[in-house]
């Protein structure tokens, strides 16, 4: 008879069950499994990771502010998930290709997004905020879990091409309930596709605690599909990077898919349209504030004497610059003209749509004589 898996009772216990390198107070502990993957990470690299996370948080705050000021239709904050996103995305090779969900601001940041890229979609100007080919990141995906299959298909193509690349997909704890995400594991396993699954278990799917999706560790599902997995402290940027390097190395070396569950926390609302006070307690938030990924790395860097106040304020200043550029690009965006509504539906002319465009153009033109 199969072993019964132990349910997870509460979110505090959750993190304790995950692999970790930096404790919440910033001390570094030995991790026999992960340490080998980050031997090259020196103080300068740590500072770079810190800087990334600070900038990301600033971008995220600017996104919220822009939405509150009516400049964006919506924003999906990633506050609290900086370590997961930066740690894993900074482990990628340039040629890897990412299939994200809507919350991966940190991932597109790490892949070189331009300031306007963060907001173009949320402002409602375009369907995709960034150029997928430029970042090697697919458009942010709103349909929960759909992108995981795309990553598997892409990985199948990589394998077919014999390329030294990995496809990576990000998704939430809620997404793990979708058929697509499970099918993605099955297809990936069947084809031994070079794909890495990154589940950001941020404990909530809008108002539903992760226990609605699973009362057991999510990473525990992958092995049943023949996919090795790791459950990692998602607020520990080092552990996230190490785990991701393990997973990427596994996939890159032809051993097939790998799976990471990063246990983290969504500090903000689900989106700017959400009111989390309706469903979650302040103390849960408090507990997680004490596990903040940025504070943690900062404490570590300061403890080892590798971060000065001056460096911190330089970083903050750099972050402000990015936020300013983001705001400027956002406010400067010019909406496409009315007929653009017809653009880009098809790659080749579609007679029905051409006719409609013509009719609509004539209709618009009929106003032109008017005052």
């Amino acid at each position, binding site marked *: 008879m199969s072993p019964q898996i132990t349910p997870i009772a509460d979110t505090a216990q959750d993190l304790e069950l995950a692999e970790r390198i930096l404790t919440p107070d910033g001390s570094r502990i030995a991790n026999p499994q992960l340490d080998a993957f980050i031997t090259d990470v020196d103080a300068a690299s740590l500072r770079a990771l810190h800087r990334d996370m600070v900038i990301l948080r600033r971008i995220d705050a600017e996104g919220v502010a822009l939405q509150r000021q009516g400049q964006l*239709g*919506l924003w999906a904050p990633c506050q609290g998930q900086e370590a997961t996103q930066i740690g894993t995305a900074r482990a990628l090779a340039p040629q890897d290709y990412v299939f994200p969900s*809507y919350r991966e601001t940190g991932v597109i940041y790490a892949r070189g997004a331009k300031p306007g890229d963060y907001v173009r*979609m*949320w*402002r*409602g*100007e*375009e*369907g995709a905020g960034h150029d997928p080919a430029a970042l090697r990141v697919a458009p942010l995906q*709103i*349909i*929960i879990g759909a992108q995981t299959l795309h990553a598997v298909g892409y990985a199948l193509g990589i394998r077919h091409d014999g390329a030294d690349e990995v496809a990576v997909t990000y998704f939430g704890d*809620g*997404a793990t*309930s*979708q*058929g*697509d995400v499970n099918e993605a594991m099955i297809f990936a396993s069947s084809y031994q596709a070079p794909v890495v699954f990154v589940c950001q278990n941020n404990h909530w*799917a*809008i*108002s*539903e605690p992760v226990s*609605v*999706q699973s009362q057991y560790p999510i990473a525990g599902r992958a092995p049943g599909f023949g996919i090795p997995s790791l459950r990692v402290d998602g607020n520990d940027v080092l552990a996230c990077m190490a785990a991701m390097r393990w997973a990427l190395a596994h996939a890159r070396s032809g051993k097939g898919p790998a799976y990471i569950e990063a246990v983290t926390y969504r500090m903000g609302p689900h989106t700017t*349209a*959400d009111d989390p006070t*309706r*469903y979650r307690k302040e103390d849960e938030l408090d507990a997680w504030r004490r596990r903040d990924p940025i504070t943690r790395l900062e404490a570590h860097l300061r403890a080892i004497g590798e971060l000065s106040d001056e460096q911190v304020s330089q970083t903050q200043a750099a972050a402000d610059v990015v936020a300013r550029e983001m705001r400027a690009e956002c406010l400067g965006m010019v*909406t*496409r003209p*009315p*007929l*653009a*509504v*017809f653009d880009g*539906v098809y790659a080749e002319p579609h007679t*029905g*749509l051409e006719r*409609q*465009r013509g009719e*609509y153009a004539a*209709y618009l033109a*009929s*106003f032109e*004589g*008017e005052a």
Partner: protein
Amino acid sequence: MTELTLGKALGAGLRQAMRDDEKVVLLGEDIGKLGGVFRITDGLLDEFGASRVIDTPLAESGIVGTAVGLAFRGYRPVVEIQFDGFVYPAFDQIVAQVAKLHYRTQGRVKMPITIRIPWAGGIGAAEHHSESPEVYFVHTAGLRVIAVSNPEDAYRSLRQAIASDDPVIFFEPKRLYHHKGEVDLDAPLADAAPMGLARVVRSGTDATLIAYGAMVATALQAAEAAEDEGISLEVIDLRSLSPVDYDTVAASVRKTGRVVVAHEASREAGMAAEVIASITELCFEYLESAPLRVTGHDVPYPPAKLEKYHLPDLDRLLDAVDRVLDRPNSLTGADA
């Protein structure tokens, strides 16, 4: 009579249905503590508990498939799909199971499932949050399809849908959730007009404007604007998209001889095509000009900043009215 928003009327309808019949259970994402992202189920968890107001895992096929199983056991599940664009993962369960089980078993198994769908655009939302998928379900035999346009209808027809032994896909125009109207909360369901009837919202003689959902309000505005020009428009709210109440529709067309059908969904093989084909069959000799469609374009729902060029609005309706009446364009003075 009580003044309620459409959203509150729906909530009241759910509450009443749950009080009337303990077999009514709700399933959906975030419908419990949160009360749904639109707060339609607000307060129901408190009143009826977690075994009747069920927050589900995030999987629409799972939700509808689970509802099918509950129906097998004699329950009357009411499913909330969080947004129109998220119904597609459940399409197989809806089309191959919900719609067909009654026929498959010749009525031995009933599927009294109501699938509520916050629906359509005009709220500046992100992609997949403004879809108009109604015709997929209209074309699917075995389903009934309702689209509401006001609080009174919402309250009544939601209760009727839940009480019906047939599966009902129930479309709620999300941009009207906050619109208010009078609702008679105590009107007995038994006295209500059947769920499948259309309603003549405004009588007129020159042309018939047919709409449903949020487009009914636009049609009414058009009728008012046209009145200023001495044109008398009849406005019909279809309310039921399957079946369509063609008696009411045909009676109007026989009177006016001219028809405009409006909806947000795209045009190609949309609901207006069905209505026009049927009208042509039923009233050909009464038609004085070609029935016209005013619809969303045949494009995926566009980004928010462009949606106003996609959605039929007052001007586009009036333009069509001019054309169907063979008049010069009343907006611009140009010839039709």
